[in-house]
C-alpha cells in the first residue's frame, strides 16, 4: 500500500525554510508520499537535497522529487496581475510539489506539466523486505 499525505499551503507558510524542509522530509522518512500545495523556493529545493544527503543511511536511501510550476508564458497580462494579487493576499500557492521516499518511488516523470509517478515493483526483494518490517 502506498500512502499519500497532502500538505496544504497554510501548514507550511509560516515556517522558516529549514523547518519547512524538515517537516516535509520527516513525512517522507515515514514512508509516505507527500503532495504539497505550492512549490518550494529554488534555494529550498537545494536545501532539501542537502538535508536528504545528510540523512541517508541503510534504511533511508533518499527521495524522489518533482515540482510542477505554472507556465507563466501561457498567462495573459490579466491572469498575471490576478496571480500577483493572489500571491500578495494568500501567499505563493502556485505549483505542486511531490516528494516520495526512494524506497517506494522508483521515478517521477514530468512532461512538463504532467507528473507520472512510478512506484517500485511490489515483488521486488526490497519491497517485500520493507513490508516484513512493518
Amino acid at each position, binding site marked *: 500500500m502506498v500512502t499519500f499525505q497532502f500538505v496544504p499551503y497554510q501548514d507550511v507558510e509560516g515556517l522558516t525554510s529549514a523547518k519547512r524542509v524538515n517537516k516535509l522530509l520527516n513525512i517522507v522518512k515515514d514512508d509516505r508520499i507527500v503532495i504539497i500545495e505550492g512549490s518550494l*523556493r*529554488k*534555494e529550498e*529545493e*537545494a536545501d532539501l*537535497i*542537502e538535508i*536528504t*544527503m*545528510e540523512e*541517508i543511511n*541503510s534504511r533511508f*536511501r*533518499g*527521495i*524522489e*522529487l*518533482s*515540482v510542477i510550476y505554472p507556465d507563466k508564458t501561457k498567462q495573459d497580462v490579466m491572469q498575471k496581475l490576478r496571480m500577483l494579487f493572489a500571491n500578495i493576499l494568500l501567499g505563493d500557492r502556485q505549483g505542486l510539489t511531490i516528494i516520495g521516499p*526512494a524506497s517506494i518511488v522508483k521515478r*517521477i*516523470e*514530468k*512532461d*512538463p506539466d504532467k507528473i507520472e509517478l512510478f512506484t517500485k515493483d511490489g515483488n521486488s526483494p*526490497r519491497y517485500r523486505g520493507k513490508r516484513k518490517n512493518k
Partner: protein
Amino acid sequence: MVKTFFRNFFKKLNFNPFSKKNSVKLGLYGPPNGGKSTLANRVCMDWLGEEMSTVSHISHETREIKIKEQVTIKNKKGKELTFSLVDTPGIATRIDYEDFLKKGIKRTEAKKRAKEATKGVIDAIKWLDTMDFVVVVLDAAKDPYSQVNITIIGNLQARNIPVLIAANKVDLNKANIDAIKAAFPQYEVLGISAKYGKNIEDFYENLFKLAH
C-alpha cells in the same frame, strides 16, 4: 538569501567581499554520469596536456570537488581566458549502496562509496555560491526534465551565475539536443561530445561569451 543579495550587488560592482579566491572559477555541474569529468579531462588535456579526473560508467565516480588551477584557453582571435576549473560530484536526490552492488562492487566498498557520494553532493551544493560561471553538463540522451536538472539550473539562476548548458554525448543515437533546448529555452545549449571532442572548439568560444 541576504548573503546572495549582497553577493549579486557587489558582483555588479566587480567587488566581492565574500570571495576568498584569486581567480575566476568555472564549475562543471550536473547529475551523475552526465560527463562532467570527461569534459574536465578534455579541457585539461587540450590546454594543460594532462588529465584531471578519473571517469567510469559507474555513477558517482567523482565524489569530491576537484580543482585545476590556472587553466588558460585561447580563442580564434588569440584572446586568453584563465580560470580555475572545478569538477563537482554529480547531484542526486537518492543514493543507494545497493545500486553499486549491482555494478559488481563489494558490499563494504559500496557502502563507503555511497557515504562518500552523499558528502560529495552536499559539497557540490555548498560550492555553488563560489562559482563565477557554470557549465551544466547534461546527458543529451536522457530526459532533461529531471528535477535535479531543474533545481541546479534554478539555483544558478537565483544566484545570477552565468550558465552554459552542454548537451553532452551527442555521439549517441538517442541524443536529443532539441529536448534540452525546449526544457531550458532561456539558456544557450551547445551539443558536444566530450569523449570524442565533437564541437569542442565551439564550446571554448562559448566559454568566452559566458565569462564576459
